[in-house]
């Protein structure tokens, strides 16, 4: 069997980064939520908020720990599998990725310990401040990562000399053309993830009739937040899409499975794109709708995939369907947020079992949306790693063989399967233990400044 190290490396990177991404995207949103709760606790002096904050801080600790563990692998992937890329881009990506590590370092050293273990030991105001700084820190971390990724999508501020990118304008490189769109889109995605997980867990507690009044309050507040954030995300996503149309038209063409450059392009609700035949089967679409969305005119011209030769096109079915899954999740989120508003009367949102059970399921929706969104933007960039400048094939480690790549691919899947199973299992234990268990415990054993030591539940 002929093993292609390029394909295997792409699968490995997709697997490792997808696995890693679900943790930070959740912790970033959750950190903001925790800061909000401790802000309320500080302002109202109501011990209920303290209890809720303590519960979610335990969940945060476990997920943060898992994110750190899975993130260690990421910082080595560029060198092991994509060494030509690492070498060529090192003058820019080296400092940028290092700043991410430095930020995380600084955050952990200064504020995470206070957030996790300082309750009751430092004044409430200081504790709230630590929560706020942790949430800001998570955003600064994502700032650097998204800057690096956006630069790979819309490279700027650099010039190529002797096979190396040299930075000639740091601010142009960091704040490149797609950066703010991607950053806003991801920030809102994190809020949605945090929000829907909190809503789902609160709904579960209400169904279970545990600490009902507290979780009803939490759910109410979260539904108000989601009512603003979910529609806002659609708006920002649309702007992000227009930005992509400007800089990466082929990606947008693949998202819409639009093969020919033409006017009055329909919005396809269903299709089976056929890359070989360069056309779609079983198309079902709304006439001219894609033209309207992308150009804001009914007869606007949309570029086609065929503008690029066959070997420079991204995998259209993957991009097309990932995009549809992401949008479907987004629409579902908006519908749930609006349903929450409709059920406001007599607090029906906390009594309607269909709605509560639906919210439980919806806690998975943001993760699906985030992962499929990343598939759209990453697969849609193919065959390039640095858009228009360096292909994935050129970026690959020259000495890498298919056998080596297969070995580590299976290895990482095995390692992550164990870690994920243990982590997910333990997370359910922490959640089951609930807010009742989040009361103050003795302090002595909490002096260990490790994230997971903040959680109270037993493993078995």
């Amino acid at each position, binding site marked *: 069997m002929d093993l292609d190290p390029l394909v295997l490396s792409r699968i490995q990177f997709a697997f490792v980064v997808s696995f890693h991404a679900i943790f930070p995207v959740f912790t970033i949103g959750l950190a903001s939520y925790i800061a909000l709760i401790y802000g309320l606790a500080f302002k109202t002096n109501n011990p209920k908020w303290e209890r809720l904050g303590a519960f979610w801080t335990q969940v945060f600790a476990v997920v943060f720990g898992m994110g750190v563990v899975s993130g260690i692998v990421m910082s080595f992937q560029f060198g092991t599998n994509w*060494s030509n890329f690492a070498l060529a881009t090192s003058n820019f990506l080296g400092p940028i990725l290092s700043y991410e590590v430095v930020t995380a370092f600084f955050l952990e050293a200064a504020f995470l310990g206070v957030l996790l273990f300082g309750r009751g030991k430092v004044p409430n105001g200081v504790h709230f401040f630590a929560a706020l700084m942790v949430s800001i820190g998570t955003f600064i971390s994502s700032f650097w990562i998204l800057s690096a990724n956006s630069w790979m999508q819309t490279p700027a501020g650099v010039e190529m000399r002797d096979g190396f990118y040299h*930075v000639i304008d740091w601010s142009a490189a960091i704040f490149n053309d797609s950066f703010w769109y991607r950053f806003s889109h991801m920030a809102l995605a994190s809020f949605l993830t945090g929000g829907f997980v909190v809503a789902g867990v609160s709904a579960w507690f209400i169904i279970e009739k545990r600490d009902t009044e507290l979780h009803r309050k939490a759910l109410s507040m979260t539904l108000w937040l989601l009512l603003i954030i979910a529609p806002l995300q659609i708006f920002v996503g649309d702007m992000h899409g227009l930005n992509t149309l400007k800089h990466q038209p082929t990606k947008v063409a693949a998202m819409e499975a639009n093969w020919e450059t033409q006017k009055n392009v329909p919005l396809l609700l269903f299709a089976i794109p056929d890359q070989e035949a360069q056309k779609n089967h079983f198309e079902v679409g709304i006439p001219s709708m894609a033209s309207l969305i992308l150009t804001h005119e009914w007869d606007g011209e949309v570029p086609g995939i065929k503008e690029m030769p066959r070997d420079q096109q991204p995998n259209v079915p993957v991009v097309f369907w990932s995009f549809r899954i992401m949008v479907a999740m987004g629409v579902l989120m908006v519908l749930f947020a609006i349903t929450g508003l409709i059920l406001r009367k007599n607090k029906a949102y906390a009594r309607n079992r269909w709605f509560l059970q639906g919210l439980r399921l919806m806690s998975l929706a943001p993760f699906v949306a985030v992962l499929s969104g990343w598939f759209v933007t990453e697969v849609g960039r193919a065959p390039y790693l640095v858009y228009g400048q360096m292909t994935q094939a050129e970026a690959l480690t020259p000495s890498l063989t298919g056998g080596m790549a297969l070995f580590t691919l299976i290895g990482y899947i095995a390692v992550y399967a164990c870690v994920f199973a243990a982590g997910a299992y333990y997370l359910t234990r922490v959640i089951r233990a609930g807010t009742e268990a989040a009361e103050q415990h003795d302090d002595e054993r909490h002096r*260990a400044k490790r994230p997971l030591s903040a959680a109270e539940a037993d493993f078995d």
Partner: protein
Amino acid sequence: MSEPIFDLTYVWAAIIAFGVIMYVLMDGFDLGQGILFMFAPSEHDRDIMMNSVAPVWDGNETWLVLGGAGLLAAFPLVYSIFLPALYIGVFLLLAGLIFRGVAFEFRFKAHTSRYLWNWAFAIGSTVAAFAQGAVVGAYIQGFETENMRYVGGALDWLSPFTVLTGLGLVAGYALLGATWLVMKSEGSTQQWAYRLVKPLLAAVLLIFAIISIWTPFVDPFVSERWFSHITPIWLLPILALACAFWLYRSIQAKREGTPFIATMGMFIFTYLGLLASKWPYVVPPNYTLSQAASAHESQLFLLLGLLFVIPIVLVYTAWTYWVFRGKVKADQGYH
């Protein structure tokens, strides 16, 4: 482009070299707990061993992540040749570190499944230590490169020589772990740790003697550096041996803190000896520090941030160790 006023390459070399030895010393003693873990006489001793490093271990490992990212920023050639050349080894290292890290967290919370986490901790630590030792051996061996790319095979890093350096570091970390335990424990656990030190010291000295004799044959450059004429670098192995003797004496005298300090001394002088052997080659045998360095403006851009953060991290680290000074007891579980 104007020539930079000051070449930051050597500043960065110092930072990375400092980061590496910080990592080796600090993660060394807690990996050492893992290596010795299943040899401990009782579950009570294992509780003590884990508690002795629980508050500090993940801070120790962050030096590794900083080292990885710092290398990409300051010496990208090292990053882009070492990682492909050590591909399988890097995977084993990371898998080992992940397993022991997760085991660390869950062992404290587990009851019936505790034995599983014990083994994950022990095997993960030992594999990670071995892989690190093999990396050192591969660095001494040198890398087959062409036009700034690694062109060797997948298992070039795994040779009889690197297996020996791997075992050497496993023994070295075990020694560091044992002397740490002497310092942090009391009673029967401490007695057990005392008994470990001499055999481990003998093993370390034996393996390092073989490595020292073997290295000049592996790499003629090293032989030239050490044996062409009398040089001051001969002081380094002498000092390392002096530390070994100091360790022996302090164990005889049943001292508690000195053995750990003496072991750190052995590590530091051996490390400096290794650096002196290869200087200024950072990707032997072809590339020096300045050839492997990134652009001046990139080095400067990151240095500004690090100058601010490294002191804070050092103070925080020192403070953590200060808070957790003194003997560890089993019931003082940091879980």
